């Protein structure tokens, strides 16, 4: 089925009280293309997907996909789940364990003649490179293959909207990017809204044309990944976007000519940050990515970076491919370096060290 060029946007504007402490109140528009629904776990992302699919009924609001109204509390419309034509890849995939891959994919094609079912399954299986697995059961194939089967099962029905709930988070990066490439290829021919839920800012940067950031059931910000995540305006957004260091600071002087401000963090530490609309004495927050901080074993000189501070190593821990170093330089900085870097610097607890931060690595939050 051909989708119109503009008509196929999805508009969501719903409210649902899920418990005494948690109320969902989310509104956004997803045009054809990838929209990343981004937020920490428990922020209500999955509930939004379930409401679009019809698995959760909001208390009030409207859900419109293309020209069809799925839900509208003001007119009492609530389209049954099985008439919504939604493609949904669940976080747990939910492949039917007692059926072959073939039967799983064909499940949503029940109404079609058997010959057409076979043709459609064969075509989608080829697009997702699972043609050789059709007679196997989900328990007998790999995690990446199951992921492909789940995508194929959702897409073979020609859905009006595709909902993906952290579909790739369990897979390694190489497999992730190959599956995404196949999905993008499919999407070239089917311009429908794709809502992709994730809590990984790496995925949010890599996949999305648009990001909708959610926190505690509310939409915090909407825009391109670059706009929303590189220039966070609030503390929650900063920590969601991967700014591991967020400091409370006071502006002590402005230098408009140089385009910088000096801020005091804690008692002893000062940071030079880009100029913003703040006056001396204003309280601000400064956010710095752990990966944007340099370390030096000896007194550095001749650098363009304006923030160079002596400190001591508090501790060194390994998290997957990253070494996390905490450094006390008046305040505590979290720094990410590679295992190779850690090795060559011979970081040890208590060792003296220099922290180097470019002015433009410091983001000033409201």
């Amino acid at each position, binding site marked *: 089925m051909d989708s119109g060029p503009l008509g196929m946007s999805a508009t969501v504007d719903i409210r649902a009280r899920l418990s005494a402490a948690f109320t969902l109140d989310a509104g956004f528009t997803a045009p054809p293309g990838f929209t990343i629904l981004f937020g920490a776990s428990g922020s209500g992302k999955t509930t939004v997907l379930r409401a679009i699919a019809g698995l959760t009924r909001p208390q009030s609001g409207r859900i419109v996909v293309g020209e069809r109204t799925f839900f509208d509390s003001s007119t009492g419309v609530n389209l049954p789940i*099985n008439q919504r034509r939604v493609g949904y890849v669940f976080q747990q995939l939910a492949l039917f364990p007692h059926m072959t891959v073939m039967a799983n994919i064909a499940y949503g094609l029940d109404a079609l003649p058997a010959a057409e079912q076979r043709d459609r399954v064969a075509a989608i299986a080829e697009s997702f490179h699972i043609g050789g697995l059709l007679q196997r059961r989900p*328990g007998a194939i790999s995690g990446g293959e199951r992921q492909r089967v789940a995508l194929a099962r959702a897409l073979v029905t020609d859905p009006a909207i595709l909902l993906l709930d952290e579909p790739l988070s369990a897979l390694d990066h190489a497999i992730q990017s190959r599956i995404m490439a196949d999905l993008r290829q499919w999407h070239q021919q089917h311009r429908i809204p794709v809502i992709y839920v994730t809590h990984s800012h790496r995925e949010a940067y890599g996949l999305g044309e648009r990001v909708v950031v959610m926190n505690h059931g509310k939409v915090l910000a909407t825009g391109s990944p670059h706009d929303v995540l590189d220039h966070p305006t609030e503390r929650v957004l900063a920590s969601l976007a991967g700014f591991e260091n967020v400091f409370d600071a006071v502006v002590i002087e402005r230098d408009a000519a140089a385009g910088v401000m000096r801020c005091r963090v804690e008692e002893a530490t000062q940071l030079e940050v880009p100029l913003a609309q703040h006056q001396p004495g204003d309280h601000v927050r400064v956010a710095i990515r752990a990966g944007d901080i340099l370390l030096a074993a000896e007194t550095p000189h001749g650098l363009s970076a304006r923030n160079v501070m002596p400190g001591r190593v508090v501790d060194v821990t390994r998290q997957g491919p990253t070494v996390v170093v905490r450094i006390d330089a008046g305040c505590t900085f979290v720094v990410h370096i590679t295992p190779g870097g850690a090795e060559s610097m011979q970081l040890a607890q208590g060792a003296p060290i220099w922290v180097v931060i470019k002015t433009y690595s410091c983001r000033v939050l409201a």
Partner: protein
Amino acid sequence: MDWQAIWLTARLAAIVSAVLLLISLPLAHWLTFSRRRWTFLVESIVSLPLVLPPTVLGFYLLMAMGSRSPLGRWWTEWTGQGLAFTFEGLVIASVCYSLPFAVQPIAAAFAQVDRTLRDASAVLGASRWRTFFRITLPLSVEGVLAGVVLSFAHTVGEFGIVLMIGGSIPGVTRTVSIAIYDDVQALRYAEANQTALALLAFSLTVLLCVYGLRRKPWTLGPSA
């Protein structure tokens, strides 16, 4: 050996299991998935035979089947004969008595089917019926089988309720357990022993078949 009693018992148990299967599938489905608040009420009533002495249940059923009760009168008008001390009465009583043995394992099996599988089925366009027959039921086969076998075995083994409702009419209500009891009362120990032994062998065979044939449940194990 009392072949007449054995044949009667087998017939009774088979009919009761079949009736229970038909009743228990929708009932267990409703009890498992209904969001109504008073499901616990129905659950308690269904489970009553588990704790009630068979004589108590038998007594009330006897009252209900008597010619002075609406049920008894309606049955008499419809069939021209009474319900108590007949094979049909025995079937009804056995269905009531064995109901929890069918409903509970089936409901437990329905409940352990992953909810997201049913969600996925609905999202893929399936009706509730299709979701039940393609997803819920196939993934609950073991529980359903257990329910059928348990209700069959429980019917074969019942005694108190047959005594209350059926009496001991050869070929009509005289089941194996009643036959053994009568033999012992009449000091015919050899015959009682023969019939008891046959019952023991039968029960063991049924259980061996069920546990021996039981397949491994479908799992999404770690990838090979």
